[in-house]
């Protein structure tokens, strides 16, 4: 390992190089870029990377954006996680759209209670997911099932905004502890832990590489897929390596593969009230499904 002094000496003892003519500023005719529409693949890769980059657990931990968030912050995380899972299953399974609309209303009320600056990130992400869902369902609409696209997009928006509402406000360690409290085996928690870390890192890595691609896309690509394909491939390689390094770092800091359930009391009055509300919503779901 060279010392600082060595580096300094080398830097000071350098010889001027002869630059090729094309590199001498002003040595070449000014470059006038050609502009073409962005390719389908590149456009979609960039959109996907921006979406992945927004996946961040605990980005608003300890910060309550609204009165509803302040109330929910008093509820134990295991109960919130379980409640969310139950409601997501209900929304997904609902054949009667009344329940999906009810949950869409709940998620919109929770969003509307926040300051404008905090609404945009959640609404944008949920909106993009809903739009993609609607596009995927477009063939069904063309084949005579126009309500399918609306149904799926509504469900997608409601579920994503509810999930983001929870995961923005709880830390990663709270989620893993909650999963252990729910009696999920440590191995399963570890797999989930690593997978979600992988997705988060995937998003960050993809965004950085997309920036690099944008900075070097100074004209028109001869092979429209080359840059985007490279970004995707390198993103997966980087995310995999980063996740593996994180796992090693966890082991080096004494992690032995076991996760501890939360130490604080779970069954508080706030938690019980939350459970009652969720059970009430499940009863509404059962009633609406039975009433069909």
């Amino acid at each position, binding site marked *: 390992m060279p010392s600082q002094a060595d580096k300094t000496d080398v830097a000071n003892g350098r010889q001027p190089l002869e630059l090729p003519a094309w*590199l001498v500023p002003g040595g070449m005719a000014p470059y006038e870029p*050609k502009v073409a529409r962005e390719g389908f693949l590149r456009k979609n890769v960039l959109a996907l990377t921006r979406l992945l980059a927004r996946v961040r657990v605990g980005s608003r931990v300890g910060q309550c954006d609204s009165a509803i968030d302040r109330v929910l912050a008093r509820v134990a995380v295991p109960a919130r996680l379980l409640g969310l899972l139950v409601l997501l299953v209900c929304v997904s399974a609902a054949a009667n759209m009344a329940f999906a609309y009810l949950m869409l209303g709940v998620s919109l009320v929770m969003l509307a209670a926040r300051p404008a600056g905090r609404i945009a990130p959640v609404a944008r992400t949920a909106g993009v997911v809903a739009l993609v869902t609607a596009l995927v369902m477009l063939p069904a609409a063309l084949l005579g099932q126009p309500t399918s696209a609306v149904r799926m997009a509504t469900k997608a928006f409601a579920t994503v905004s509810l999930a983001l509402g929870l995961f923005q406000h709880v830390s990663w360690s709270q989620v893993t502890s909650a999963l252990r409290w729910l009696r999920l085996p440590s191995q399963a928690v570890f797999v989930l832990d690593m997978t979600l870390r992988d997705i988060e890192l995937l998003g960050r890595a993809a965004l950085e590489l997309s920036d690099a691609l944008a900075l*070097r896309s100074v004209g*028109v690509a*001869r092979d429209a897929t080359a840059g985007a394909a490279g970004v995707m491939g390198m993103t997966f390689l980087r995310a995999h390596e980063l996740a593996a390094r994180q796992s090693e770092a966890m082991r080096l800091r004494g992690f032995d593969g076991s996760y501890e359930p939360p130490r604080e009391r779970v069954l508080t009055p706030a938690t019980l009230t939350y459970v009652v509300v969720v059970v009430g919503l499940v009863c509404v779901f059962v009633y609406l499904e039975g009433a069909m």
Partner: protein
Amino acid sequence: MGERGVAAGAVDASEQPAMRFEHVSFSYEGHVALDDVSFQVMPGELVALSGPNGCGKSTVMRLASGLDFASAGTVAVLGQRVDATTMSDLRTAKRLHQRAGLVFQNPDSQLFCPSVYEEVAFGPRQMGLGEDEVARRVTDTLALFGLAGFEERSPWRLSGGEKRRVALAAIVSMGPELLMLDELVDGLDVESLGRVADFIESYVAAGGTVLVTTHHHDHVRLPEARHVVMDAHHRIA
């Protein structure tokens, strides 16, 4: 230097700095990254922007490249105002990115091609140069940074210092007038550092402009460099 086409948002071209930050502030997710920063870099100048970790040096480079936009103040690079409006014009953005090259702090964030040759050829090919000219630029650039013989190697498998040199070569091969090098010395060994320092000196002597960020005040003594120091409060000290 020849006349360049007038682009959207172009500012007065008489004796203008290569880079100008005027009362620039930038925040993201509620964190202040730059607070009323003003400085300028003249054409043919070598400037070392130093300061502690997290003071906003990399943000300066991102704003100058149009990857992010200032919350307040004016950023102008090579006579081109850099803001959301001007950068929404694809031709203006592409012209700026060819003329002002940014080398990231982390080379892993910059390399996305399967081989070193493809990596260095990516920019010249985008510029529509013929394959002979592309090959010439790749050969010249790899030789400049001691990477001859690396053409078929995968950038992913290179050492940290080699990756940094490939990342630099990938930008230099586009023939920029302004080079922005984020944390230049990180991961470079003695030989690599010497090569890069040789290149910078020659490039500046030939009329190129270089902005280097570093958190090591004394790590590289670039005798010609003018030092601009940022403090922990995200301001010019």
